[in-house]
């Protein structure tokens, strides 16, 4: 256990820039955008007159609707964090078993009494838990700072931030949902993670190419076979990979459930395999589905192959 923790720490040290600096930069951009927004208002607007008007107008809107919009905003704020997180994890895993082969530092890592299984576990854990949790913490902190800043501005402008927005939504619920969706996504994405580690373990160079080419070829073949069978493209335009992506338990987009009822959505609401509303049970539905079971089997094969290759990485 100590060894595993030490190896996870090593992954964090090596990838501090991606795991910690990147979300901090996003948080910084959010704050900068807010400050710029206020300065812009101040510049064109005498003493924030129209902002005051706007706040007064908002204060009179329907409380229930305001509460719904607020929750949606809380959650949607995570989308930029989640998107960048997905890229960070993608490239992290792609380099995870490749970089130390390239610079030969694998010979040092292999001189430590840590098994290859433990090494792979530490890298997978970093991708599934460490990176998402750090991104989530910084998302929450950014959120808190922005709410505090906005409360101060609202107070200065003579409105009550508590009745205006603070009391109308439960940020803890939004934060909890986002964190849950991160963990659910870590499991949902395991076939991809396994694939990336496998590519990382075998590719002699340019792992990105090896990672992308086979799925693209498969996707095109699938589309073509489908076209031959049905002579139409509508039937299954997105294919297997499209379905996997659209059904993700990650909060990626919004959905309109009818009049005055819109909110964030899990994945992209273009498929009907799963309910896309953001609830814990909908996330669990995906994790405990047969699709997931097949996905886990595929992930196990990929990870097993990655481990096999890792054991032989110093062969020549």
């Amino acid at each position, binding site marked *: 256990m*100590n*060894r595993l*923790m*030490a*190896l996870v*720490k*090593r992954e964090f*040290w*090596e990838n501090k820039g991606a795991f910690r600096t990147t979300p901090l930069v996003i948080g910084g951009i959010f704050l900068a955008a807010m400050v710029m927004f206020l300065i812009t208002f101040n510049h064109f607007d005498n003493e924030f007159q129209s902002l005051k008007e706007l706040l007064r107008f908002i204060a009179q809107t329907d409380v229930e609707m305001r509460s719904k919009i607020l929750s949606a905003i809380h959650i949607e704020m995570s989308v930029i964090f989640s998107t960048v997180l997905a890229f960070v994890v993608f490239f992290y895993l792609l380099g995870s078993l490749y970089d*130390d082969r390239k*610079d*030969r*530092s*694998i*010979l*040092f*890592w*292999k*001189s*430590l*009494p*840590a*098994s*290859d299984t*433990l090494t792979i576990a530490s890298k997978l854990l970093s991708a599934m838990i460490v990176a998402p949790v750090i991104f989530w913490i910084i998302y929450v902190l950014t959120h808190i700072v922005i709410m505090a800043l906005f409360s101060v501005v609202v107070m200065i402008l003579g409105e009550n931030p508590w009745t205006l927005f603070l009391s109308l939504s439960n940020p803890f619920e939004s934060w909890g949902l986002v964190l849950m969706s991160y963990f659910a996504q870590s499991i949902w994405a395991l076939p991809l993670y396994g694939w990336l580690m496998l590519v990382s373990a075998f590719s002699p160079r340019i792992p990105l190419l090896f990672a992308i080419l086979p799925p693209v070829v498969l996707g095109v073949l699938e589309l073509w076979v489908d076209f031959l069978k049905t002579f139409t493209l509508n039937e299954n335009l997105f294919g297997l990979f499209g379905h996997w992506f659209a059904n993700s338990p990650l909060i990626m987009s919004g959905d309109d459930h009818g009049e005055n009822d819109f909110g964030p959505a899990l994945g992209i609401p273009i498929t009907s395999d799963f309910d896309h509303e953001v609830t814990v049970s909908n996330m669990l539905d995906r994790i405990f589905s047969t699709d997931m079971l097949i996905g886990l089997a595929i992930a196990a094969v990929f990870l097993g192959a990655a481990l096999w290759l890792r054991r*032989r990485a*110093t*062969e*020549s």
Partner: protein
Amino acid sequence: MSYVIDAQGLTKRYKRTIAVDNIDLQIPSGRIVGLIGPNGAGKTSALKAILGLATYEGNLSVLGKSPASDRAALMEEVCFIADVAVLPRWIRVWQLIELTESIHPKFSREKCLQYLSSTKVTLDHRVKQLSKGMVAQLHLAIVMSIDVKLLVLDEPTLGLDILFRKQFYTNLLNDYFDEERTILITTHQVEEIEHILSDLIFIQDGKIALNSTMDDVQQNYVELMVAPDQAAAARELQPMNERELFGRHIFLFENANRQQLKELGEVRTPSVADLFVAIMSGGES
């Protein structure tokens, strides 16, 4: 008695070549063994098998463990420096120490800091900021702070200047080596290690060409330097090898009668490098 390294029929095959060809090898503890061979002779392949870094055929036991199936456990008892440039470049010295400490049960932080205090390496340095020589010092400091029974060094001083190289082996000998430990070294710079070796193994084309203690080497091999007019007489005694230096002829003999040789010219113990050249050019015999 049990050996630190016990290999029987050790063979390493690549697709087209046989790098290690059916080697039998026993190394007891408390030795400093030099594994010497030309490029591509199979040294690194043999070491990789011993360290569990590559698959092999035959029986191989290192400290009673099988390197192929038990690498992680074996690494608690074995340290190796593969060459000077394998420490991860991004890591800071304090991170390296903390990491080794939490993964290696036999690592002593105090010892490591003590070794480092005599160098210019600081805890806050990143490996990529260090010179090649400092990286070697750092790696050696880490390895010497781990209390293991077998240390394997594969070209540990490659590309270092002479000052670092001398210092490296001095430290190893004075601060680290004792009769409980075994050190296995490969290097091309034979002259620098021949004084610290207790055993010598020559390897050629995947086979062992010589396996002997240094004492036996000094007993069995003798070099004779003669003036040109005595060369023919020396040749009569069937030397292994002959070369010319500044107009004098130098012959190398195995198991020769020293008394007889002394009558022809000057007799001395050959250097490992000269012995190496003689045996390697002597061919398969």
